[in-house]
Every structure is written in C-alpha cells, then in structure tokens.
C-alpha cells in the first residue's frame, strides 16, 4: 500500500506521472527559436596524426553555418571536465588518441544537414601504432601522451 509518509512506507514519486506519460521535459525536448544543430567529425583511428582537414566542400553546403577545427577553438583551452592529468583539447588537430576523438565540429540549420556536412569533410590521417591491451600499455613501451613519463 502506498502512503504519503516518508517513514515506514512506500512513497510514490511525485515526478512519475509526467515521466510515465511522456509529459516530462528533457533538454532535447526544448525548442528554441533559431535553434541550430552541431555534429562532429570523429577519428576512425585509435592513434593517428592528423595531417590535413579539408572543409571546403562542407562549407559550401546549403544550411551549413560554421565549421570549427582545432585552431578555431584553441584559445578556449582544454575540455572543462578533466578526468586525467593530460589536458584534452576541445577539438584535436594534432594527434588523436582514441577512436571517436573529435577533430571538427559543424553547426548547421538542422541535424540532417549537419550530418551531411560531416560526411563531406575530408581528414587525412597518418595512422600510428595503437596500444589496445592494458598490460602492454603498462610496459610504457609506447606513451599515449608524450608529455607524461608513464601510461600508468
């Protein structure tokens, strides 16, 4: 049996009626006038040097508002949420260190256009050796970050 007391009984949550009927409001549900969408170009390599990024075709696409690469955002510093001692850039234009690391960001009038533009950005990489094994990483035979002394 449900009760309204917080002690000794089951309390039905007051937020649940909205959540179970699809009436809750999450950030993605909020529409803002003139809203734009961002999409990211991400590394397909676990470890690679970024040699060049060609955004010209994407820039010319209808609905594309802006394209950012590392040099455009460098002045903003590294990612604010730091989990490691090594600063992580907002966008990486140098050496990517995991699959999915962002190298460019597109802002467009809608998400489909943004995604199309991502597909029209050409990044040239020089793949580097990747360490995919914890034990191997612990030997430090290859440093993930040159600025550190050890991977551990």
């Amino acid at each position, binding site marked *: 049996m449900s009760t309204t007391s917080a002690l000794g009984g089951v309390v039905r949550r007051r937020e649940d009626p909205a959540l179970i009927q*699809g009436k809750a409001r999450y950030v993605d549900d909020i529409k803002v006038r003139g809203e734009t969408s961002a999409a990211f170009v991400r590394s397909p390599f676990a470890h690679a040097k970024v040699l060049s990024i060609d955004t010209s075709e994407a820039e010319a696409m209808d609905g594309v508002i802006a394209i950012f690469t590392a040099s455009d955002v460098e002045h903003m510093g590294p990612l604010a949420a730091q989990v490691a001692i090594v600063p992580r850039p907002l966008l990486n234009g140098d050496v990517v260190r995991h699959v999915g690391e962002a190298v460019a960001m597109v802002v467009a009038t809608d998400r489909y256009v943004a995604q199309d533009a991502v597909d029209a950005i050409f990044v040239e990489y020089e793949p580097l050796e990747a360490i995919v094994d914890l034990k191997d990483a612990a030997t430090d035979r290859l440093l993930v970050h040159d600025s550190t002394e050890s991977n551990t």
Partner: protein
Amino acid sequence: MEVSLTVNGRNVSSDVEPRTLLVHLLREDLDLTGTHVGCESGYCGACTVHLDGKPVKSCTMLAVQAEGADITTIEGLANGELHAVQEGFWERHGLQCGYCTPGMIMSAAGMLAENDSPSEGEIKHGIEGNLCRCTGYHNIVKAIEYAAAKMRGDEPAEPEWEVSS
C-alpha cells in the same frame, strides 16, 4: 514528400524529406517529445512506439514507411488515464530518470497485448530490446508483472519491500 498517417487517433500529414526518421517526425514535426532518442541506431529502444499495434523502434524506420499506418506513442497509450503498465511502473518503482521509460512501457504494453500471463523469462525477453541505465531491470520486471495481473483482473503481488508487521 507528403506522408499521411494516424497518430494517437488523429489524422496527420506532414511534408518530410524522404530520409526523415519516424522518430523525428513524431518529436519535431508533431511535438510528441514523449518518444525519446537514446542511440539513434536501434539498440536502446527509447524510441519505441506502436505501429498498427506492434512495438517498433521509430529510429529505425523512415517516416514515409509509416504512410497510412496507425501509430500510438506514449502520449496516446491511455489518453489521459493510466494504462496498467504505466500504473505498474509508478507503483513498483520501475523508473528513475524516466528516459527509457516511454520505450519500456510501449514494449511492455505490446507484449501484454499478446500475452497477459508472461513468465518472468518472457517478460525479460519482451524487453530485451530496451536498455535502462539507471533503474536496473528488477523493478521494471516487477512493474510489468503488476500490469499483467491488473490486466487479467487479478490482484497484483505485494511489493517485495512491504514488510509485514
């Protein structure tokens, strides 16, 4: 492209790009934001709706594929009342943040419409296409068992946390 379908009992038409996903038609054109997007790739089930009574993941369908179809979203499942599954989730703490919940409820309602006496294993199987990152599945299964009992006209089992004195 023009697409016409029925959504929650209402006839709607919308002009969409041929590649528009059904979930985006629902959320963006029709403002039915109760249907969520978790992965956009068919894994999480947050986008589950009913198409002609059967649960489908609306991120894996094009809006134009729903031409002429009858779609029910979480908003239209019980039209202001609570469906037994919705009640079950509330009563048995089947949710925390609620993000996966509309999809879970639509999958569960679809399953119970076919079988109102599922075993625990059948319930788990029925929601295996839905991922929840916070509640854990235990209470979700209990919530669906509660709903099944209600739909059969039985008294739902006492909650596990009810301590008899």
